[in-house]
């Protein structure tokens, strides 16, 4: 490991060829501008006095695609191409901070110097008080972008009214279009209070109508000073998220930050659906001196943004991440902020950036190294970089993002029905999990008991229940709660391994997966078994993690059955070992799985069991209506009907949710068709009652789910097929047997046809028809090469045939034989 920054920087120089246009098969991987920004970041001289990061920034303004700055950018681009090495000359003014600001650097109590661990003299902090502001890792800040801008000194916290140009304490309203502020009293007509929903000022309104608008001029001598927000949105300032801080040996404070971008700076430019206050998070990092940080701003997720109404001017909205290499967008998931799913997101977390660096330099340089390898490997080792192999995945996936955020996603106003559909999705995790409190308490008690117990001997829980009764969901919810308790420090930390039996390619692979999650190394399963045996039986440590208790959740446990059941035995045997600290939770459908196993296994597993019974209709109803709370989409009886029906059939919550979603879909389809057909004739008349999902929709959905479609097929099949089916029912009834040979059937068809004056079909035709019916499994038949010896039998009860064909208009005489 290379310790000093002096070393690590040359090390990262291979990055340069990567970004240069010559290298990889990236689409337009590096425009000179971007690479310049990057390179200049990297090749910054050792004396931190020179304001390189800022130069880099002024170069990076070239990226602007807006016409406003096009001229300027072209000029600077030219220069930059000519003299990339002279980059520092660009900023004529060294950024001497305004003398007025008093300098105060103090380390707060929470900062934890790690000087002992980092030999090169960098000191990392989690929290820094700088220039009077307190900054923390993960905060969003404004960063200065351009030097010498005349109005940079004044930084008005409160913006002035666009009409009277006074700032004052009065209530102001913000236009949703131009973001200008207006005093309520200055407006014509005056507003008493802030209106609900969107509000657009009259200037923008007029502009939209196509009129020329003359904005009120500021009074003589008073310039309209711009707030930081305005400067940011006109790309005179930058916003960034702080990833880490450190102090160089010479006492200068630096930070690593992740840039935000305004829509104008992306390749596609501002799109009509972009909000005024929208920013994109990029995957572009650089090191910046703390000097250039201005103050805090707040970049929020859509949910927080909606709630943050009165939080001041520096609030921004960020829903997407922008990839600067590939120029594409991706939604930001909650997973990023949610540590609990860290292991799932682990593999692309690695690519992005360790979100919480905790000021650990080891991790930092490891990352650097990793990245270097990735890029150099790109040329020679194609297999490793193939996206579907383990190594390449990190590299390939950031390419997936969409080039342009589709408009329908953003500007679409959801109706209640569509919202209902979204909440009924199986994938949406509900806020609360009703009806499984008892079981969840039991699981929590079991795990807590096992963890807190010093020995935790032989802890094994078997959970069973029919599909869709919330087994896995409950366990995962309990684990989430426990995780927060660990964070709060009330219980000991543990590690959690989650395995699904059906997702393993073979039962033995489970060793490999367990070992990989425990130690993050990949080995073959035999070796993994060996290591795991060592760890659990003998108590040797695996990897660097301390001897934490380990909770192993195995979903679909019955899939681990091998012929000699050794996999299950091994896994269930470990908890009985004194040093193992292993807790196994097995989930499966069958109640008597332990009894079906060898006695030595069932004695280890069958002791503690938990049964998830099927939901009854009240529970189902509660589950559905808890999801639909606050939405006016379903009639009350409709929900009850659906839940009663499902409870009677299976008690499967998934099924109930799907039926309701399907019903909502059907209602939505009906409404949309109606509005389409009505649009032509007269304006849509949407009365309130028609928007609700009613009994008929639920009924239709239930029909679709539970009823086999054979009756409709029988009703619609060709005439000869009908005759054949009837002949079959007739003959089977007469003989009392279950099956019939083709010869008999054909003679019966012939006699039926001749006695009713129909054309006699040829035998080969009949054979073809029989095979067609057999294909759709209305009848079961042997292969057609047996010809007259072929045996046929009905796949559905003969009553169904009678029901389907009784009053058939095409061949009325059929009913005689039923």
């Amino acid at each position, binding site marked *: 490991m290379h310790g000093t920054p002096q070393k690590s920087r040359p090390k990262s120089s291979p990055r340069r060829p990567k970004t240069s246009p010559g290298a990889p098969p990236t689409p337009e991987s590096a425009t000179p501008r971007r690479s310049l920004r990057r390179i200049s970041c990297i090749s910054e001289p050792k004396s931190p006095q020179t304001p390189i990061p800022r130069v880099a920034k002024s170069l990076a303004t070239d990226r602007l695609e807006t016409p406003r700055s096009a001229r300027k950018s072209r000029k600077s681009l030219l220069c930059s191409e000519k003299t990339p090495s002279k980059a520092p000359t660009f900023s004529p003014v060294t950024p001497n901070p305004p003398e007025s600001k008093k300098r105060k650097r103090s380390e707060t109590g929470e900062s934890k110097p790690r000087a002992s661990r980092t030999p090169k003299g960098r000191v990392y902090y989690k929290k820094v008080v700088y220039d009077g502001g307190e900054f923390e890792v993960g905060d969003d800040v404004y960063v200065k972008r351009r030097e010498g801008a005349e109005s940079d000194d004044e930084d008005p916290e409160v913006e002035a009214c666009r009409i009277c140009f006074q700032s004052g304490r009065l209530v102001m309203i913000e236009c949703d279009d131009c973001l200008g502020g207006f005093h309520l009293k200055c407006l014509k007509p005056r507003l008493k209070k802030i209106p609900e929903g969107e509000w657009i000022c009259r200037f923008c309104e007029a502009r939209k109508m196509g009129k020329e608008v003359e904005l009120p001029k500021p009074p003589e001598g008073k310039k309209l000073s711009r707030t930081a927000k305005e400067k940011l949105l006109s790309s005179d300032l930058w916003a960034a998220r702080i990833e880490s801080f450190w102090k160089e040996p010479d006492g200068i404070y630096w930070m690593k930050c992740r840039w935000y971008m305004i829509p104008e700076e992306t390749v596609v430019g501002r799109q009509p659906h972009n909000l005024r206050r929208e920013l994109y998070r990029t995957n572009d990092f650089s090191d910046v001196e703390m000097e250039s940080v201005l103050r805090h701003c707040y970049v929020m997720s859509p949910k927080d943004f909606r709630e943050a109404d009165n939080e001041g001017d520096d609030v921004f909205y960020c829903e997407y991440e922008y990839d600067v290499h590939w120029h*594409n967008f*991706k*939604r*930001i*998931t909650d997973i990023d902020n949610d540590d609990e799913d860290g292991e799932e997101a682990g593999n692309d977390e690695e690519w992005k950036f360790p979100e919480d660096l905790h000021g650990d330099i080891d991790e930092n340089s490891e990352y650097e190294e990793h990245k270097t390898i990735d890029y150099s490997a790109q040329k020679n080792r*194609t297999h490793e*970089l*193939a*996206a*579907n*192999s383990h190594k*390449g*995945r990190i590299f*390939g*996936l950031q*390419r*997936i*993002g*969409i080039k342009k*955020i589709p408009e329908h996603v953003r500007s679409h106003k*959801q109706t209640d029905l*569509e919202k209902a*559909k979204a909440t009924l*999705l*199986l*994938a949406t995790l509900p806020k609360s999990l009703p009806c499984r409190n008892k079981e969840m308490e039991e699981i929590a008690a079991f795990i807590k008991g096992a963890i807190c117990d010093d020995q935790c001997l032989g802890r094994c829980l078997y959970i069973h229940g029919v*599909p869709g009764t919330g087994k896995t969901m409950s366990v995962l919810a309990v684990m989430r709660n426990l995780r927060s308790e660990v964070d709060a420090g009330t219980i000991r930390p543990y590690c959690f391994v989650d395995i699904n039996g*059906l*997702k393993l*390619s073979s039962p033995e*692979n489970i060793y490999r997966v367990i070992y990989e999650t425990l130690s993050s190394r990949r080995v073959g399963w035999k070796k993994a078994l060996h290591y795991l045996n060592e760890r659990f039986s003998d108590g040797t440590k695996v990897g660097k993690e301390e001897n934490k208790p380990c909770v192993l959740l195995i979903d*679909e446990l019955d*899939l681990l059955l091998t012929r000699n059941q050794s996999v299950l035995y091994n896994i269930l045997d470990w908890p009985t070992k004194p040093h193992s600290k292993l807790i196994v939770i097995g989930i499966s*459908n069958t109640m008597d799985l332990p009894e079906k196993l060898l006695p030595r296994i069932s004695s280890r597993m069958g002791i503690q069991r938990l049964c998830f019974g099927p939901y009854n209709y009240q529970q189902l109803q509660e589950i559905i209506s808890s999801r639909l709370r606050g939405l006016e989409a379903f009639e009350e009886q409709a929900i009850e009907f659906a839940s009663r029906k499902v409870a009677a059939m299976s008690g499967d919550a*998934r*099924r109930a949710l*799907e039926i309701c*979603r*399907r019903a909502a*879909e059907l209602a*939505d389809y009906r409404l*949309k068709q109606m509005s389409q057909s009505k649009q032509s004739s007269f304006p849509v008349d949407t009365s309130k009652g028609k928007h609700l999902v009613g009994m008929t929709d639920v009924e239709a959905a239930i029909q*679709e789910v539970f009823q086999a*479609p*054979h009756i*409709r*097929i029988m009703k*619609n099949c*060709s*005439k000869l097929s009908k005759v054949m089916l009837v002949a079959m029912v007739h003959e089977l009834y007469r003989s009392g047997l279950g099956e019939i040979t083709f010869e008999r059937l054909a003679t019966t068809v012939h006699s039926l046809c001749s006695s009713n004056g129909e*054309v006699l079909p040829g*035998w080969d*035709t009949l054979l*073809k028809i029989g095979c067609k019916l057999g*294909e*759709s*499994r209305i009848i079961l038949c042997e292969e057609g090469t*047996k*010809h*007259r010896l072929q045996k046929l039998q009905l796949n559905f009860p003969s009553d169904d045939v009678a029901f389907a064909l009784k009053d058939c208009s095409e061949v009325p005489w059929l009913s005689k034989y039923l």
Partner: protein
Amino acid sequence: MRRKPLCFPPSARSLSQRIRGDAMTVAEKAQALLRRRLCSPTFAHAAFKSSPESNYSKLRFLISSSIAEACNNSVLLLGPRGSGKIAVVELVLEDLKAEHPDAISVIRLNGLLHSDDNCALKEIARQLCVEHQLLFSKMASSDDNSQFVMDMLRECGLAHKTIIVILDEFDLFTQGKQRLLYSLLDAMQTLISQAVVIGVSCRLDADQLLEKRIRSRFSHRKLLFVPPSKEDVQRLLECLLHLPKDSSFPSKYVTEFNRRLSNILSDKKFKEVLDSLLDVDGSVSNLLRLLFRAVSYMDMESGLLSLENFKSAYLCTYRQPKIDNLEDASILELYILVCMNRLETKEQNSYNFNSIMKEYKAIHDAYKTSDNYANNVCLRAFEHLLEQELIGFTDSKGRTPSIEFHPVKLLISSRELYQGLTSNSSCPAILQKLFDHESYK
């Protein structure tokens, strides 16, 4: 006369002309247009696009709403073969791809090829890689592949891209442990993904084949494909065969063609032909097959369709292969068949070549026919019958080296045999008498 290259036979003249593109007559052009329509898998189904009850609009709504609302869905398309399941899917995808460019990636799997889970996962990974211009490695393990597929599902979901997985012959994916279906459907309910799984099957009980935990994860949307009704067939015929007014054809020809066509379509005899075709199999593909034949029979002189074309086309589709075989059978073969039939009516359930020969000799002795052949000649005829599958071994297993001793069975019924004997021109009278004698007494 122009010199032609020697390698073209005279009959290929029109072909060579067509290649040069100079002398394609109006009739040829019309025929080509009609054939193109009939061969295109989607043209026939595009006729039903507009109606809200059609499967097209239902499926389109389903997929487009899951694109617009960023949700997962799974749907089964059920219906007999030839009812246009895949064609409708293709139509919908074509439309949606035009509507949302760059946001849809389609994965196509076929149960006949990819019923093995590992192979299917690999194929999905490969197609995803091709779609997104990523490097694909053949050597990746199945764990890697499945991990990759899950990652892609999530990433595409984050990027508002929809992955549509079409599983043709869905019933074949339900063999084995159904790991592929489980991991797909489970991913769809746990990840933030945006995927639609479309299962296509001709088995009506396809969803019953799923294991219960997979069935619970499957969202049971089903679209049923039934053969078109009589009115729909009429509409379809008009839409398929009418020449367009605004085309390169001379307008006189177009009006004449269309007038003749409407005459045919409303003709009673044509309706009879159509009915007898649809009585057997009412699917769209069957109809298209008939029409293609009819168009190929079109009279190139006048360039107009006639009722005769449809009739002869119908006769081509309406074939009885076994009767045809019997018509061409040799006398000795007929003797063997009649002997077998006699043995069966004597309720002798198991017999082989030697017992047939005994019967043959007995007939010969009794009636003193002129058709007496040596044993090895009879064996040749016997083998020929076996090849034609008019007769067959009772059990295909345990085949002994000599076929003389292998028990055999007659595969045609006595009624068919009777029909064959009467239609065979060279059938000796004695044989018919023999047959009549025993079956109708």
